[in-house]
């Protein structure tokens, strides 16, 4: 390709591969070198703005490090990092008047490991970036949990002072929620969802890339809060304790903003993708339940997440700008924080479980070789949870001193959520009924999820009843409940999803034996760790304490030992993933005999997913229906169904 002639033909603007790359100095091209110097440059810019304005306005002291850290280090420097890495290049280029290149795929696909460390617009690469990053933060958060349990192994303080201890469990919870569960689901869906609906990519690939790169920023910010004490008010960061915390609390407030912005952008992307980019024939009632689940989850994220952003901004403003949102002496309203916070954070519980419901529906149907029982009711119950989920937030506040009359209506809506949730559980069980159940690793995790989630759901019903909640609120009973639903619930579904789609993502099979050992070890350790917590909670051990009464010493020692086994079980997973990705057996296109569209393409799928737009002709789970097909690909290729040679799941 000659550089001089093609660059000026109009057609060249539509095809990046024909356009000659403009030679720039390596410090000026998008990538890590530019990201590093731009991070420092933007920090310097922020420093100058703060100091300049303060000097101009005669504020004392002129060099106020608190303001500088918030404005320069936690706001502008990350923007500089993103800009340097190339997150805004296309838009910036458009904004200064360069011709747009609608078919620019230069940032698409991964051909070497380096392509995972740049701004990549391929939803499959982004999906893997998400999953790998979130597993890293999962291990970091898990390590913090090990520290917490080490401290709690004996009744007195052993290893940490109380401020450090408070920061340990705060950052543990924040990492697990904001940097693991929520984005891990976003990552799995990022990879699978466009394939499932027959789309070549997400609707906004560049926005997709940007929303991924916000995550490491949030994670690093949370972890670095250990160098600036203060993120020790729990992941709930209740005012006025959060306002009174040492300065490091701003790291929590700002990290939540970055993680929240990431999930809002991803959710908008999912919504537009699902609404506008379904393949021909893919009606809403033919969508796989994973797509339904991410549709409802994205609605929750878009509506609710701005509220937690608001709550953290208010705390930040109270600290830095001396506003009085939560300062009672100055007319602030302390309970206001909790209302705003839980208006996000209760729906967030469903943000952290609905995508898991979707994954489990796929897995259980495939490995039972049966259609999902009551498909439409399954989809409708997701919508019911979505609607009800916005009307239950104050059940976190039964003892808070809010208006007393709110308690009974909030209890009724809370208990009613058990109904659509129950429908889902019973429908999964009915899907098993008369099936041909294959207990492969994804199925073990899915069934493990159902059993753990039933226990977590039932303790949730107990907590929904106001009198019981009053007695056990803020005790280890709550800790037990949240871990049954988030660990036995969300985490198990994430593992089900990772094992299920690992062949599709990497083109290799994982080691089944190690995966099963991983499951059974985790399953036993989860129960040994968290079930006794119900007991000590009811008997009077409050949560978030570094020391406790001697009467709980034996149970706590047992819990700590179990938790170390739990932590160790994930090493098996990490080993299995790394070794299998490098040298596992080559995976076929459809190792499980799944019927949804992602199993019709190669493992891993080609860069643009489909050579030709798939035609959707039937329901996604018509196992056992003679001649039924979900989709037809490339005209001549046979869709998954009776006519395809059967595979051993």
């Amino acid at each position, binding site marked *: 390709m000659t550089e001089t002639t093609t660059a000026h033909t109009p057609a060249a603007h539509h095809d990046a591969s024909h356009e000659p790359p403009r030679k720039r100095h390596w410090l000026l091209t998008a990538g890590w070198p530019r990201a590093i110097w731009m991070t420092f440059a933007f920090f310097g810019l922020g420093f100058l703005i703060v100091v300049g304005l303060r000097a101009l306005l005669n504020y004392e002291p002129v060099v106020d490090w608190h303001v500088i850290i918030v404005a320069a280090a936690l706001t502008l420097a990350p923007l500089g990092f993103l800009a340097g890495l190339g997150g805004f290049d296309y838009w910036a280029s458009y904004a200064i008047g360069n011709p747009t290149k609608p078919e620019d795929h230069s940032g698409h696909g991964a051909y070497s490991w380096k392509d995972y460390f740049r701004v990549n617009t391929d939803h499959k690469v982004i999906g893997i970036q998400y999953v790998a990053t979130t597993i890293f933060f999962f291990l970091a958060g898990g390590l913090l949990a090990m520290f917490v349990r080490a401290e709690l192994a004996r009744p007195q303080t052993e290893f940490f002072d109380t401020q450090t201890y408070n920061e340990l469990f705060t950052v543990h919870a924040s990492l697990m929620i904001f940097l693991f569960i929520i984005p891990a689901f976003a990552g799995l869906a990022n990879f699978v969802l466009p394939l499932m609906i027959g789309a070549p990519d997400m609707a906004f690939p560049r926005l997709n890339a940007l929303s991924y790169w916000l995550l490491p920023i949030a994670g690093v910010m949370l972890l670095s809060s250990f160098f600036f004490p203060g993120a020790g008010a729990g992941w709930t960061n209740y005012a006025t304790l959060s306002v009174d915390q040492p300065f490091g609390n701003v790291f929590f407030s700002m990290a939540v903003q970055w993680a929240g912005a990431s999930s809002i952008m991803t959710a908008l992307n999912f919504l537009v993708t699902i609404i506008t980019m379904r393949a021909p024939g893919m009606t809403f009632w033919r969508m796989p339940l994973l797509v339904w689940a991410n549709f409802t989850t994205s609605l929750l994220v878009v509506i609710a997440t701005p509220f937690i952003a608001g709550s953290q901004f208010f705390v930040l403003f109270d600290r830095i700008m001396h506003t009085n949102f939560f300062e009672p002496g100055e007319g602030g309203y302390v309970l206001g924080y909790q209302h705003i916070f839980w208006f996000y954070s209760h729906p967030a519980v469903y943000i952290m479980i609905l995508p898991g419901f979707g994954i489990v529906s796929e897995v259980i149907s495939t490995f039972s070789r049966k259609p999902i029982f009551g498909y439409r009711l399954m989809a409708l119950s997701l919508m019911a949870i979505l609607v009800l989920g916005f009307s239950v937030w104050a059940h976190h506040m039964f003892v808070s*001193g809010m208006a007393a009359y709110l308690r009974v209506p909030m209890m009724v809506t809370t208990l009613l959520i058990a109904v659509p949730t129950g429908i889902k559980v019973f429908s999964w069980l009915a899907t098993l*009924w008369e099936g*041909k159940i294959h207990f492969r690793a994804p199925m073990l995790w899915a069934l493990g999820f159902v059993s753990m989630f039933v226990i977590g759901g039932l303790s949730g019903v107990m907590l929904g009843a106001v009198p019981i909640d009053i*007695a056990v609120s803020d005790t280890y009973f709550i800790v037990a409940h949240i871990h049954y639903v988030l660990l036995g619930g969300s985490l198990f579904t994430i593992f089900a999803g990772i094992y299920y789609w690992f062949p599709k993502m990497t083109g290799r099979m994982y080691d089944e034996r190690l995966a099963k050992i991983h499951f059974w070890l985790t399953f036993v350790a989860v129960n040994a760790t968290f079930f006794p917590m119900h007991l000590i909670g009811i008997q009077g051990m409050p949560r978030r304490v570094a020391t406790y009464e001697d009467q709980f010493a034996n149970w706590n020692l047992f819990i700590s030992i179990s938790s170390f086994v739990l932590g160790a079980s994930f090493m098996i997973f990490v080993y299995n993933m790394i070794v299998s990705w490098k040298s596992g057996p080559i995976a076929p296109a459809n190792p499980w005999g799944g019927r949804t569209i992602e199993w019709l393409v190669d493992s891993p799928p080609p860069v643009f997913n489909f050579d030709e737009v798939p035609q959707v002709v039937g329901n996604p789970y018509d196992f056992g229906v003679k001649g039924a097909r979900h989709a037809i690909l490339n005209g001549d290729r046979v869709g998954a169904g009776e006519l395809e040679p059967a595979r051993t799941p």
Partner: protein
Amino acid sequence: MPRGSIWQGSGPFSRLDRALRRGAVVALISIALVVAAITTSIAYFVDWLPENASEERDGIDLVLWVTVGICLFVFSVVASVSIYAGFRFRARPDDDSDGPPIHGHTGLEIVWTAVPTILVTIIAVLSAIVLAENDSAKGKPMVVEVLAQQYAWQFTYPENGGVKATTLYLPIDRSTKLVLSARDVIHSFWVPEFGQKQDAVPGIVTTIIITPTKVGNFRLICTELCGLGHALMRTRAIVMPQAGFDRWVRQQRQGGGGATTTGGETDAKGLFASTCGGCHTLSKAGTSGMVGPNLDDLSLNPEGVRQQIRRGGGGMPPFEGQLSDSQIDSLVQYLTGSTQ
């Protein structure tokens, strides 16, 4: 009407119904009964509830047992279906065939929507009744003002001459209305044996009713994370017969630590016990707080003590503005005088 073919080919009986008839019902019910028997006996024989020492705890325990019963029922049903399905429908490794295309069953779906709705309605109605009952006092309640601060409790008895204490003394079989407020951050009042719990929130006043039914000495715990000393923000709730309680009130009013007493030493001692004693040990004042330094072990100089009380530091909140200058003076005098 669900699509699909569960009605196919066999008259009024679906595949599902046939599957159920094949002895499955007997097996399911047997497994459910075994699971229910095991879980119920664990719940019943293991002593997992704290002692019941208040009328409110009666109501809470009632709701708890009804809910636990319902939960065990649901758990047994789910466990029996999972266990049965796991063994009965396990595919042989070489079996590549699909299961029957059962897409749904309207009757079953109605049942498992309706039954849980009824069960949670039972829980909700019972809870609402118990809640209303626990919110109302039996007769005219005695009022106790509870002031929570980092990291201590202070109890004031306005109907008993404004007696102040750092331990909660209550008469038996009489409703007490606790009126809670907080000085700095949110705290939460909990005595496990009473069941009732209530946050103390800066800027608003919250209330809670407690009617003790047992004489005893119970844990009183802060359950809302309130900072460095949260785990140690504890005291005791002591329930005594009415006569004993009256005697205690009389003693307090005559000499020990009330706000009504005058005279430097006792005044400062009471002030110390109520304000500082939650965190600091000082044998002369009879306090045993473990959050801050043990003042028995320190040699204190007046100016240092004054600065520390005013400005705080090292985890201790500043008391300037909360204590008057003369109160601080008397504390300084009491501390530097009494520890040398």
